[in-house]
């Protein structure tokens, strides 16, 4: 079924294009002759030449038209022959030539020997349409899509006929939708009432702003009180369509806001989840947590320096590397400083704050105080267009997925491994755990290392969308503490729910209050929340929790 359609489409287009002209068989000689006239021609004459060439429908003319459009069509002074130039970059002194008929390489020439064939706006516009018509039969759906958009911009009877044929043949849903919208918009201008009603029905599913505006314009009155659209039935249909579109656009906006909120919240979760381990499970207020993230971000930077040609690989390798670097620093911290301060959380705050200052200065001494830029791999940029009103940016999607993966791994480590079992045992009852033969000192070091390592991983993620500098950690430390306390100290799920909901609330408020006020509002709301429920969203219960209080 699809196979036949495919074949038909490839057969039909040249036939269709050729059928309208008397010259069914284009020949190389004609093309060359037509081109040679271009040098002396006026813009009007050039347009005639262009029309004549394209009317043959021979796809081999497309490169010539595209070259003329892109200012790459030159005349060689020595023999007055016309050539396409591979690239007309200003920095090149010698330009590579392509023969316009055979499209084979034809040596090169110096810039002095070549004269550009100029174009004007009108000619370029016409050229774009003509090139787009050729592109309509391209095998690449993206090229076809661009061609449809180009043709729809200036529709005449010819283009309409072309689009209609293509619509029947098109098998790519996105391109077909684009064609149908173009046709329907045209039908609104020209068709009878019946055709206009059909067009409105077709357009009611599109969420694009131009479509909505066009439909809304049907409902407007002109200055003397007459409706732009004479038929009442058509007006009613248009009004219904506009309402439906508005409803869907509103839904899309909410979805988009939720998505943005989730991505902002994911960052919060990611920076807080390591803290949920060190602070939540161990009761250590680690003010150097932010600096451990900073170390992770710098690890990413160093990995990129080491592998400058493999950005994607360097980021992927940076994840375990950052875990190791930050985790090791964490273990050293625990062994040398924090183990002397258990049970005195406020003093861990002071000591780790000192550590954070030292780490910042270390980074300043090694990498200088300037921000370093970390490149983002190509696959992380760009957007996914869900419908006319909703586009999802890939990097935001990546951060959400990454956070969920890190969270899941951490859950598995804490709930399904020997180490996790020991960590939970020590946090619940240290003396009993020790009596059962658990080496609590080792578990303490591993727990702190785990939390710090997760901070390092968060740093890798942060390096993708903030500046990597010595102050990177400071800007996140307060919000990460807020997330942990809000979620409930000692509860990883609390951190996840708390962070995500903080992000969503922040994004929902932002359009009304502005970015800064929204942040202030979230902070104040959190302060009030903690005063009402001091143990957070998911308070820990049981004897262990009570003895901590």
């Amino acid at each position: 079924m699809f196979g036949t359609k495919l074949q038909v489409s490839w057969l039909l287009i040249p036939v269709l294009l050729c059928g309208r002209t008397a010259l069914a068989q284009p020949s190389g000689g004609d093309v060359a002759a037509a081109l040679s006239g271009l040098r002396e021609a006026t813009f009007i004459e050039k347009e005639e030449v262009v029309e004549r060439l394209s009317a043959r429908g021979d796809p081999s003319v497309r490169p010539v038209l595209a070259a003329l459009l892109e200012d790459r069509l030159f005349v060689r002074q020595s023999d007055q022959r016309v050539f396409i130039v591979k690239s007309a970059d200003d920095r090149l002194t010698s330009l590579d030539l392509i023969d316009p008929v055979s499209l084979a390489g034809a040596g090169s020439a110096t810039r002095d020997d070549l004269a550009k064939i100029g174009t004007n706006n009108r000619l370029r516009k016409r050229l774009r349409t003509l090139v787009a018509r050729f592109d309509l039969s391209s095998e690449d759906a993206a090229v076809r899509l661009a061609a449809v958009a180009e043709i729809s911009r200036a529709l005449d009877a010819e283009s309409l006929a072309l689009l209609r044929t293509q619509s029947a043949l098109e098998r790519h849903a996105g391109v077909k939708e684009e064609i149908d919208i173009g046709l329907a918009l045209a039908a609104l201008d020209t068709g009878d009432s019946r055709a206009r009603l059909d067009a409105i029905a077709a357009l009611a599913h599109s969420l694009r702003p131009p479509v909505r505006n066009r439909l809304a314009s049907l409902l407007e009155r002109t200055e003397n009180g007459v409706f732009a659209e004479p038929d009442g039935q058509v007006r009613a249909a248009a009004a219904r369509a506009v309402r439906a579109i508005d409803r869907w656009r509103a839904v899309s906006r909410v979805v988009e806001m939720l998505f943005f909120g989730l991505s902002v919240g994911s960052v919060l979760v990611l920076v807080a989840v390591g803290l949920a381990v060190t602070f939540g499970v161990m009761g250590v207020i680690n003010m150097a947590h932010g600096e451990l993230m900073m170390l992770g971000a710098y690890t990413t930077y160093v990995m990129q320096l080491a592998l400058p040609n493999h950005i994607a690989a360097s980021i992927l390798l940076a994840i375990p590397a950052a875990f190791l670097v930050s985790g090791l620093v964490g273990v050293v911290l625990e062994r040398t400083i924090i183990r002397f301060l258990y049970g005195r959380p406020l003093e861990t705050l002071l000591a780790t704050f000192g550590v954070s200052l030292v780490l910042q200065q270390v980074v300043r001494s090694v990498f200088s105080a300037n921000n370093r830029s970390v490149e983002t791999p190509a696959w992380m940029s760009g957007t996914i267009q869900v419908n006319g009103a909703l586009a999802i940016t890939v990097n935001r999607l990546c951060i959400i997925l990454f956070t969920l993966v890190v969270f899941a791994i951490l859950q598995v480590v804490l709930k399904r491994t020997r180490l996790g079992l020991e960590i939970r045992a020590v946090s619940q009852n240290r003396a009993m755990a020790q009596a059962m033969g658990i080496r609590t000192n080792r578990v303490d070091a591993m727990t702190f290392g785990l939390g710090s390592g997760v901070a390092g991983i968060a740093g890798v993620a942060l390096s993708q969308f903030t500046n990597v500098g010595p102050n990177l950690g400071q800007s996140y430390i307060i919000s990460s503490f807020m997330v942990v306390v809000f979620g409930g100290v000692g509860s990883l799920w609390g951190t996840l729910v708390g962070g995500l909901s903080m992000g969503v609330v922040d994004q929902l408020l932002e359009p009304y209050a502005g970015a800064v006020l929204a942040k202030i509002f979230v902070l104040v709301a959190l302060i009030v929340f903690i005063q009402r429920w001091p143990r957070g969203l998911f308070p820990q219960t049981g004897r262990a929790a009570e003895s901590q209080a």
Partner: protein
Amino acid sequence: MSGARRWALIEQDRAGTVFLAVLAVLAIASPILNQLVPASSPFHLSAYWLTLIGKYLCYAILAVAIDLIWGFGGILSLGHAAFFALGGYVMGMYLMRQIGARGVYGDPVLPDFMVFLNWQKLPWFWIGFNHFWFALVVIVAVPAALAWVFGWFAFRSRVTGVYFSIITQALSYALMLAFFRNDMGFGGNNGFTDFKEILGFDLHADSTRVALLVITAGVLAAGYLACRAIVDSRAGRLFRAIRDAESRARFLGYRVESYKVWIFAFSAVLAGIAGALYVPQVGIINPSEFSPLNSIEAVIWVAIGGRGTLYGAAAGAVLVNYAKTYFTGALPEVWLYALGTLFVLVTLFLPRGLVGLGTLRRRTLDAGPAALAIWAIRSEVGASLESKLK
């Protein structure tokens, strides 16, 4: 407690007396060294040093305020810089109104930044700040009100320890973000600066600087004595009982939260006054003063000086800030290493701060750092046991 007995207590407190004496000497000597000793003499105290000492003393007041609640009540506020900054902003509003038509835009009423933002009239909350007495009232009222309301909600819900520290930090952060906004009407990013005079005295004149220094020293002494009085009173003893065993104090029938909230509010007022004295001396106030890092730094001064002594806190503030001035000028790279290492070492080995050094010396230790740390923990436990038995 009678006045005579309170005085006796202060007399007993030798270190406290030394501290007050140093302040007295400073208050008497600095005017002489600045005004009477000629500028050519090596003993002349320059305007630079006057401002610097004045600044240190303001920090010392802030440190005493923090020590009152942390050292004696176990309440670690990481938002005291916010009260300090609020006091500073109120004083700044008065000083801005004093500029009058001498501003860049020459508007007789509106401060420059309002003219710049095209504001037509003074916002309501700026009214009255052309009067010094009004500013003084607000300097006390704003930190007191904020601390009282905040403390009342927090202590009533039994938000304690780390949780309290974190929400005070959030409060301070929220205020910083708010003051960064231009629409707030407090000069946004740039804050207030370019002050001309206070009560008609030129702020750039040495005589005004000396007077401000003497007043600051006086306020520090008065603040110290007031805190001392609170600590030695019945309420103060209960405050320490709350620090050591809050539930027990509550079960004995005391309304724990009202003690905490009043002392917290007093501490905030003291911090606000410190800020108000700070602004005319350094000549600028901007939202970065609200930064939670400033609060942490102030807590560090107290820890380094020695908490629970009041004079130790003041000494810590002056010492750390002098070291900061010295190092940031002479060896800027070393400063953060030095400060960071100092925090770690003091927390590990000197839980009573530098003032605790005296006690440490008496028990000579020949063991390594680990044993030293264990000793430190033990002495801390001992200290809290002692105070429990008292």
